[in-house]
């Protein structure tokens, strides 16, 4: 079963103002984490996204032209990155998510950040459920 593990941890206006050493430790953790998932054959994809200051929301205008907006409420959650894993059980997906959750933060302390875990339907392509 495929699951998407999402770090919805960024907020509008946020940047990563940690000491360089802590950022390096976080990146090393993430690279090692991904290496392990790849070695176990469970990793399908992983990406990190740029900060929300570059994010835009786009809507089609009256003639289908793009209308962009870059003003967001501070409470808006932004995706910081994600993994797609292929695992036997949801419990295994949760285990992997817990490991990502414990990524080291400032001072090397585990962040214990929330990771949203969602199944990907077997016949995924364009999303079937839309408003």
């Amino acid at each position, binding site marked *: 079963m495929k699951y*998407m593990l*999402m770090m919805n941890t960024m907020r509008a206006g946020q940047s990563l103002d940690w000491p360089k050493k802590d950022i390096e430790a976080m990146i090393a953790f*993430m*690279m090692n984490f*991904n290496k392990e998932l*790849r070695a176990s054959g469970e*990793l399908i*994809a*992983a*990406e*990190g*996204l*740029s900060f929300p200051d*570059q*994010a*835009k*929301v*786009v*809507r*089609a*205008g009256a003639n*289908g*032209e*793009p*209308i*962009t907006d870059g003003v967001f409420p501070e*409470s*808006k*959650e*932004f*995706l910081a*990155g994600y993994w*797609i894993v292929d695992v036997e059980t949801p*419990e295994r997906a*949760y*285990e992997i*998510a*817990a*490991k990502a*959750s*414990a990524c080291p933060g400032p001072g090397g302390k*585990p962040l*214990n*950040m*929330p*990771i*949203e*875990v*969602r*199944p*990907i*339907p077997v016949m*995924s*392509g*364009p*999303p*079937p*459920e*839309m*408003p």
Partner: protein
Amino acid sequence: MKMAARSAKGATLMKYMLLMNNMTRSDVYAGVSGWQQQDIDVHIEFMKSVTSSLRQSGELLSTEGLEVPDHAVVVRAGKNGEPVTDGVFPEAKEFLAGYWIVEVADAERAYQIAAHASSAPGPGGAPLNMPIEVRRIARPATGGEVNLT
């Protein structure tokens, strides 16, 4: 380090993620339930055509649709690193319904694709003009692709 991809004209291509994530749980369920089957079919056909035209132009890197929020769980590491799961979400929480990752020459092209997806037909075939969040995939300052995998 992986070299950045280039277009036929030699321009460096950039990766963007187009997210359908501006819906809360109640939007998701209120949404589809009120639609006629014919409108749902037309909508799905449109979404399939978005994907196939992006595949044809060579701009599509990946696309996925996610299960409805009923199946969502938030996981945190507990004291000993064990998974602590929670499935209770605030009403205002936005859920990702699906996404596309495209590789394009510039941001404007990504916005154009997003606007096209935004205009997907809704009830009665009228364009939904739904919001699509466009985010650049991160790259390090060196200009190479971030490839955490």
